[in-house]
């Protein structure tokens, strides 16, 4: 299996290396993506919940920010 490429620049030797990810790095890469997706989903759900609350209160986001003192 071909894994994505990574770059390493050793400042001490001046050597620049480009190589495929190790299995460990690839596992971390996939974990990072999964965490990012989960975070985006949570953000989307928060946005939906926020809009639902605004609708329930019958106010706009700007009005809500005014109430909360936000800018």
């Amino acid at each position, binding site marked *: 299996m071909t894994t*994505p490429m990574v*770059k390493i620049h050793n*400042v001490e*030797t001046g050597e620049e290396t*480009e190589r495929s990810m190790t299995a460990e790095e690839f596992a*971390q890469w996939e974990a*990072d*993506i999964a965490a990012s997706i989960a975070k985006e989903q949570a953000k989307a759900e*928060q946005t939906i919940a926020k809009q639902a609350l605004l609708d329930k209160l019958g106010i706009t*986001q700007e009005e809500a920010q005014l109430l909360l003192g936000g800018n």
Partner: protein
Amino acid sequence: MYTQTQANAAFINDSLLTTTGDIIYASGANTPARRGIGSSGDVLTVSGGVPTWATPVTGGMTLLSTTSMSGTSTTVSGISGAYNQLVITVSDFYPSPTQGSFFFRLNSDSTANAYRYLEQQGDSGSPYATASPQWFFNANAFYFDATQNNADSNAFAWIELPNYADTTVNKFARFQSSWTNFGGNKQTIFGHGFWENTSAVTSIQFSHNGQTTAAGTIRIWGVK
């Protein structure tokens, strides 16, 4: 008229000076001594109670490395521990093929040791009125926020790592960034936090989460 003994006691013999740039100092009471010239740029200082030439200690920033980003991550390793602080800039960076959070890891540590406080603001409405500021704990990297795959984003990041070479305390980090999203709206963030690890920082890994970095230049300065 002086006798030789009287002359030796009253005068300094010019044979003491053998080379251009020599100066005379007292290595002890009534004891003249020669100090040879130092190197260009040296300054006269005191060591062990006598004058000596030495390389001046200067402040300012020394550019340690310039690295073009590519692939899914770019790691700058072999960073000298001879400075008090590191200042890192990342310029004109953006991910491909889609958006992804820009982040850095100290010593490529992907365990949950990064703690950060992040504030973000954009000029398009108030998109982060509830999402920012936020405190992130037990994160596996110092994340900024999603930068778009916009070649015209003019993204710029500034990271400061004081005390990075210390081996007894956690490492503090302060970072900020700004960029332009598609549609032209501007984003800026400011964050600070710490890496819960007492190791000296010798390498820094940069990446866009889940993406390839299409472009970007990392510069690292050492600050005395």
